[in-house]
C-alpha cells in the first residue's frame, strides 16, 4: 500500500466557494492528480467531475495521470472565463 505524503492544495473560484477555504495541507495516498481530485471531491462534495477541470502541479499545467510527490502544490482549475 502507498505511503501517505503531504500535498498542498489551493482552491480558486467555484472550488474555493465549495470548499469554504482557499487551501488544504493534506496527507494522501493518491498516486495521481486524478486520484487526488476524486478523493477530495468525495470528501468536500465538489460539483464538477474531473473531466470538466484542468490541473496544475507546482504552477504548471499537467496531465491528470501525472504522479504526485510529497510536498507538491496542486491546483484544480475549473472552467475558465477570462477575457
Amino acid at each position: 500500500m502507498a505511503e501517505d505524503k503531504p500535498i498542498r492544495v489551493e482552491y480558486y473560484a467555484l472550488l474555493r466557494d465549495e470548499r469554504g477555504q482557499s487551501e488544504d495541507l493534506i496527507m494522501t495516498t493518491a498516486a495521481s492528480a486524478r486520484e487526488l481530485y476524486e478523493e477530495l471531491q468525495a470528501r468536500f462534495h465538489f460539483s464538477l467531475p474531473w473531466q470538466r477541470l484542468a490541473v496544475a502541479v507546482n504552477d504548471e499545467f499537467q496531465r491528470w495521470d501525472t504522479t504526485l510527490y510529497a510536498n507538491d502544490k496542486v491546483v484544480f482549475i475549473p472552467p475558465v472565463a477570462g477575457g
Partner: protein
Amino acid sequence: MFSLSFEPVVREDLLDALSNEQAGALATFEGWVRNHNEGRKVVLLEYEAFEPLARKEALRILEEAKQRFDIIEARCVHRVGALKVGELAVWIGVTAAHRQAAFGACQFIIEEIKARLPIWKKEHYTDGSSEWVNCREHAHAH
C-alpha cells in the same frame, strides 16, 4: 508584456509603451463588463486569477503570437478583483508594420487568453444571486 492589475487600466501608458517608429499599425481589443449576460442583468463582476500560472501562460500566448504573425510588439493587461458594468476587463494591443498582422495577432491573443488563462469570473445579478461563469454543473463552456 503581460500583467494582472487590481487597478483600472490606463490606456495611454500602455499605448506609449507600444510606440515605435517602425510600426504602421496598432490593433487593440478591449473586453468590457456588459450589463447583461444570457438574459440576466449583471451589476458587478469579480475576476480571480491563479496568478503564477496565468502570468506564465499569458507570456507563452504573446510569444506564440510573435511566432505566428509578423508583429513588432504585443501587450496585454487583465483586470482582477471587483469590476462594475462598463469597466475594462482586458486590454490587448499589438503593433506591426502592416495592419493584417496586427489584426490577426490581436484576435489570436484574445481567443487564446479566453481559452487558456486560469482566470475566473463571478457574475453578480440584480436579483442578488451570483454565479461562476461556465461552471454550472451541466453547462458547457461557450
